[in-house]
């Protein structure tokens, strides 16, 4: 059987005087119609490896050794001195091998109709009239499950949801029935339920076109359900490779075992940290949040009468799909987006609804740890300055206090002088937590605090949060779309749909005996290590 993609002994280095190997001695191959999962944590070189295959390496990196061939066509052979040119690569991209990127929000041009972007992708390799291309685009969009594609094709990306945009990206990728589809974290930015739909779509598309798939992800569960073979990467090397089922059932390498162990445990929290006798961290009473939308008369109701109580030392998880109102609820608690109706009580004392109207003392009772560790920290400030900021605002700064806060989250003086750009995602999140703790809040709003992190880092941060909760008696409002993460940390789970609470119960009960159909749907969509959800589908070899 001929390989669609064959990478041999690939070495990628940083350019410049002190060349550092980012990918070293990686060999991979993908056969026709096969699905290869490439798993690894950030910095493992998994994305670089496949980007290199399409000649899309970022500035500052270069191929320093090895051989890459797509469909038996040698693109690079460092020893033989073969280097494909830009023209050669362009002929190949989109036609023989196509890519689906991670972020469907930024991979479409916001100013052009989605249909015309798909049509452009069609016309790149197939000379045809604009009209014909547009018709083909509608056909493609319909084939990836976009309803009323003819009408929707004329609308621009902002009118499309994340899942629909990813469908459009897939439509572009399959425009020329490529032999090879490369999907780089295709569902990381999506909800679990949408993730399941997109992965189903990819499987269905492959069944129809017979293309091979390289699925790059950090999610072992996703790979377990969607790949035939698996390559585990770590520090720029492939540490283990083999049939997916075989590797997951009996991992041979330590790293693979560690990766699997770091998956969120399928068990609940055993020792609650709730402190009786202390005032509740949060009492939110019938919160309503409404947004005014320009051009529409009636305001949009994001949160529709939600009540919530979090005791000191308790973790309450609010789960739901994006747009269900969980973030708006958190913002209303913080006052960033004031509630239209309802009341907020923090640490036993009522506070005003708008942040601007709250006194500094009222504000410090509830603090937030943001989802995106990249936008949460001012890129110009050092770690020390970042953690010092809340103390400076309250004129309570001391060097020792900052050092203590950093110590509490497991960072030392060496980290204190660094800029956010010099930290890993997990370290950044630790800085965010230290900053939130600086003012000794009663309630910590955790807005998807680990969804941007690798699994092993996720586990560490969750452990840190658990320890801090026990030490300080903090109440956690844990916003998440990931039920797997929620299971191991939350005492209670609140499921939200369309601004309302549809189910609320202790964590164990939610997982053992979900009552609401939406809760069941959420639970079903979580990818699991123990096997393909939709049954192994052998793909036809064309």
């Amino acid at each position, binding site marked *: 059987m001929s390989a669609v993609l064959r990478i041999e002994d690939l070495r990628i280095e*940083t*350019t*410049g*005087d*002190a060349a*550092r190997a*980012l990918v070293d001695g990686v060999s991979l191959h993908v056969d026709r119609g096969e699905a290869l999962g490439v798993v690894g944590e*950030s*910095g493992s070189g998994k*994305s*670089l490896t496949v980007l290199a295959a399409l*000649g*899309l390496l*970022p*500035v*500052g*990196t*270069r*191929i320093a050794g090895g051989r890459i061939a797509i469909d038996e066509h040698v693109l*690079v052979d460092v020893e033989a001195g073969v*280097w*494909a*040119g*830009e*023209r*050669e*690569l362009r002929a190949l991209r989109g036609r023989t091998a196509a890519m689906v990127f*991670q*972020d469907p929000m930024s991979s479409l041009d916001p100013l052009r109709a989605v249909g015309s972007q798909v049509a452009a992708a069609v016309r790149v390799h197939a000379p045809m009239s604009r009209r014909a291309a547009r018709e083909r685009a509608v056909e493609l969009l319909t084939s990836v499950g976009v309803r009323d594609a003819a009408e929707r094709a004329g609308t621009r990306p902002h009118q499309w949801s994340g899942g629909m945009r990813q469908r459009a990206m897939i439509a572009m990728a399959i425009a020329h029935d490529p032999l090879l589809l490369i999907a*780089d*974290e295709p569902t990381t930015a999506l909800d679990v339920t949408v993730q399941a739909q997109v992965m189903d779509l990819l499987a269905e598309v492959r069944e129809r076109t017979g293309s091979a798939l390289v699925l790059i992800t950090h999610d072992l569960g996703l790979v377990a359900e969607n790949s035939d073979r698996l390559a585990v990467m770590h520090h720029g090397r492939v540490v283990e490779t083999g049939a997916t089922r075989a590797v997951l059932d009996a991992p041979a390498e330590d790293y693979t075992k560690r990766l699997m162990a770091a998956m969120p445990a399928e068990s609940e929290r055993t020792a609650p940290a709730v402190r009786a006798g202390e005032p509740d961290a949060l009492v939110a009473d019938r919160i309503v949040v409404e947004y005014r939308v320009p051009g529409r008369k009636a305001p949009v109701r994001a949160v529709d009468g939600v009540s919530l109580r979090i005791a000191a030392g308790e973790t309450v998880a609010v789960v739901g799909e994006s747009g269900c109102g969980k973030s708006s609820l958190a913002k209303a608690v*913080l*006052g*960033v987006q004031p509630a239209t109706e309802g009341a907020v009580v923090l640490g036993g004392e009522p506070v005003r609804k708008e*942040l601007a109207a709250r*006194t*500094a*003392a009222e*504000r*410090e009772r*509830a*603090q*937030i740890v*943001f989802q*995106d560790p*990249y*936008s*949460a920290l*001012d*890129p*110009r400030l050092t770690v020390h300055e970042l953690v010092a*900021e*809340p103390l400076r*605002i*309250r004129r309570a700064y001391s060097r020792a206090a900052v050092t203590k806060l950093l110590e509490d989250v497991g960072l030392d003086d060496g980290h204190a002088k660094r800029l956010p*750009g*010099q930290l890993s*995602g997990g370290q950044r999140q630790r800085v965010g937590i230290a900053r939130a703790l*600086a*003012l000794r809040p009663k309630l910590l709003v955790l807005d998807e605090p680990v969804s941007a992190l690798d699994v092993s880092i996720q586990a560490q941060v969750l452990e840190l949060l658990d320890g801090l909760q026990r030490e300080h008696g903090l109440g956690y409002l844990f916003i998440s779309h990931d039920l797997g993460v929620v299971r191991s940390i939350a005492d209670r789970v609140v499921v939200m749909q369309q601004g309302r609470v549809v189910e609320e119960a202790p964590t164990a009960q939610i997982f053992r005996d979900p009552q609401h159909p939406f809760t069941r749907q959420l639970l079903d969509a979580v990818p699991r290590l123990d096997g393909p959800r939709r049954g192994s589908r052998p793909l036809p070899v064309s």
Partner: protein
Amino acid sequence: MTAQLAAVAAPTPRRWRPRPGAVVGAVMLGAVLLLTAVVPLLPAFDPMGQDLRAALLPPFADPAHPLGTDALGRDLLSRIALASAVTLGMTLLIVIMNAVIGSTIGILAGYFGGRLEALITLLSNVTLAMPVVLLLIAICAVLRPSAGLTILVLGCTWWVGYARVTRNVAASLRRQDFVVSPLTQGGDTFWVLTRHIVPNIWPHTLIIAATDIATIVLITSSLEYLGLGVQPPVPSWGSMIFDGQRHLGGDPWLALLPGIVMLLAVGGAQFLSQQFTAETRGGLLRKGGMR
């Protein structure tokens, strides 16, 4: 993914190698600055003193007047040096005024948004629609032309570019979590603006200012050429070229020499600012095949 790319591209410790364009630019602008700084220190520096017996001396003919003299026998080297100081000084002042006004307006519009932003957009469009040179001529018809007037008018009408860019940056910064965070900790708008917004915006202002220098030199010089701005006997590049063109047939150096100095300044500033912009921006993807 983006973050990962950045992480890969950022930490490579590169030795700073200036591009050829930057070297050329630095040499050109450096020559003008050197001229401006050193010549007034020479004992022979006298930009105003007339000597009709030594009028229209060609360059290199008399050691007392290395670049010759003009129609009134004034030392050309001294006059060019003073003119450089005058024009560059005015340019710098105008650029700073515009940068400050424009960035302030842009930051306020971008951060607060809403009606203020609509008002400021309107104001920008009105400002943009005004022909600055015509406006200045009209004002000078009423008031007396002077350097101060030129600085005032140009300094208050060339800020739209700064406002546009800084408004966009401020609007995107406003949505960043690190701007929200101090608010939840008891900080106020002033804190956020001074600690997070302004420090993250001024590099953008600097880039525009760098590219603006050449433009402003050209505009002020053309105004000087029309007799608006610095008044005689104080020289400027524009007025010197205007004076010199009357002798273009017999003594072309009178117009050429200030012209060359101006070319050096404008070209140098342009080359340097391009280098500066390129350094700050940097691309994400390489082009040109596998290698």
